[in-house]
């Protein structure tokens, strides 16, 4: 039941997975998954635990290499590129389990997110010559004005990230991913383990990032919180046991029999968080 009512123009597609297979030994984590993400959208991926959502993100990101299938980013085939090269192309992500750099301050974490935009090398760095000095101040200005201000983390910028509470670590991780100025941002369960207030904050940040003229970042969202998913997404992609069930607008997904059987369960359950 693939819904293809809207015609997709090729130049609109930012990321495309074509018939991707991924096996761990004999276990098929993904069997023939295809996905198109269009510029400017929030595209969600949902599915029960173990459906292969995180595997899919890791494949897009380059941490796993699929045995079969093709991945296109901005029309370029990126199957063979290692993660750091994909980052240079404009692919950024956050992790399901926070993976911040615990020993660095919040500011340094975000600075590290801008790694690909810094230029200085080992010689100019070791003497902190004019170029490095200027660059550090330039990027500091960007970070303060664009990221720290947006995410409202002014008060913790000099704290070691490992000592912060979980909710703030998630926010720092989002800041770090955003500092890269990506074109596609993969958000792997950004709301997991947050309290209601933090969920609302985070949802607001995601909308800001997606809609504000300054950012306009396409988001690929993996999330279990159905209320948020249905409210935020332009399209929802449902995965079950490595197979796509449906890829459609939120309303169509909610009324799809197969999705309800596989994941949503009883009607109205998904709206409990609201």
């Amino acid at each position, binding site marked *: 039941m693939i819904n293809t009512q809207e015609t997709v123009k090729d130049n609109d597609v930012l990321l495309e997975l074509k018939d991707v297979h991924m096996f761990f030994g004999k276990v098929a984590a993904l069997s023939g998954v295809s996905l198109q993400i269009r510029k400017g959208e929030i595209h969600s991926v949902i599915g029960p635990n173990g459906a292969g959502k995180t595997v899919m993100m890791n494949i897009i990101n380059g941490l796993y290499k699929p045995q079969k299938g093709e991945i296109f980013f901005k029309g370029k085939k990126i199957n063979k590129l290692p993660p750091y090269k994909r980052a240079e192309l404009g692919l950024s992500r956050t992790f399901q389990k926070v993976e911040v750099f615990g020993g660095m301050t919040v500011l340094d974490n975000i600075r590290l997110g801008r790694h690909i935009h810094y230029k200085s090398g080992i010689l100019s760095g070791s003497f902190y010559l004019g170029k490095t000095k200027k660059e550090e101040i330039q990027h500091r200005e960007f970070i*303060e004005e664009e990221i720290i201000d947006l995410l409202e983390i002014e008060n913790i910028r000099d704290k070691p990230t490992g000592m912060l509470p979980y909710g703030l670590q998630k926010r720092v991780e989002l800041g770090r*991913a955003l500092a890269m100025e990506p074109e596609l941002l993969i958000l792997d369960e950004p709301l997991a383990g947050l309290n209601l207030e933090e969920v609302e904050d985070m949802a607001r940040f995601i909308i800001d990032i997606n809609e504000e003229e300054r950012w306009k970042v396409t988001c690929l969202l993996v999330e279990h919180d159905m209320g948020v998913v249905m409210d935020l997404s332009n399209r929802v992609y449902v995965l079950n046991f490595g197979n796509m069930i449906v890829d459609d607008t939120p309303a169509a997904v909610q009324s799809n029999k197969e999705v309800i059987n596989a994941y949503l369960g009883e009607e109205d359950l998904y709206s409990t968080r609201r």
Partner: protein
Amino acid sequence: MENTYLPCGKYHQTYKDEHSWWKTKFIKSKMILLLIVLFFVIPNVAQGYWMSIFNHVGYTILGALGVQLLIGYCGQLTLGHGAFIAIGSYTTTMLLLEFPWPQIIVDLGLSYPLSTIIAGIVAGLWSVLFGLPSARIKGFYLILTTMAAQFITVDFLITQYISQIGGRGQAFSIPGESIKIGPWVIDSNTKVYYLMLVLVILIIIMLSNLLRSRVGRAWIAIRDNDISAEVMGINVLKYKLLAFFVAGFIAGITGSFWISNLSAVSPEHFEWFLSLWLVGVILIGGTGSIHGVIFGSIFMVVTMELLRMGIQPLGETFPKLASDFLYIRDSFFGLLICVFLLYEPNGMAYRWWQIKSYFNLWPFSY
């Protein structure tokens, strides 16, 4: 931990102020005072024996800085750093003894400085070679491959082959007048001290500048979380090897410096215990901190000297103590590491940071 609170009531107005090296006037004057003491007071007050202890502290600092970079900042456990120091020493010695330097370079006193730089580069490349396994393995397994560096380099290559060159036997004695920088011949403890001081300050400046710019941040990111570092656009292998190169380079410079203090170079100076000792220094001083290297080095060297001074008089009545001093020293070293790991796992640098923060915020520490 590197970020210290400013004293009460101090605020920065520009980013430039906050990025500056010495953030307040007080720190600046404190550091200048320290430099005056190091350069003028100590050499005039301290006598020969104490001078040699200072030199040994400096040597330990230089050696441990490389280990700190690898273990404390890049997270690559290494237990073979002595090998690269040995490479530095032997490269310089061989260049000084065997290389046909043009007379003009010898007259200008450039042969030793040039050899030192070459030694740094050679040791750096040698270190990269043994850093290559870090592409695939980490943690305990990397300890084993870096230990291999120690045994392959010192016990095999240097002892078996390089020491045989020129038929000099095990130890290479270095003619005193060949250790010459410009017009100065490094022939006394005081001169070695000045050379040590310049090198220590230079390398600390370079390393701390690296650590607050792009390359150093990438290293720390790899230490904290290599997977997300790669996702954030860091070429992990490249930066790991860069860390091995810089650590090896520092080790090469260290080794090359140390021959100015030795009358002869032999493989016994670079036994595996040296590598272990340097790791002990950063464990006691505190991993991930340049202060830690300095505190650890001073503490270890001075403690061992005090131990020796304490045991020597006892040796007259108990001859066994004097003859077994080496064993006592080693077991004391082990005991110290145990005590520090139990009671001060973050090392002396953490305590120092706490004291500093306390006084910066005093009397309103909340």
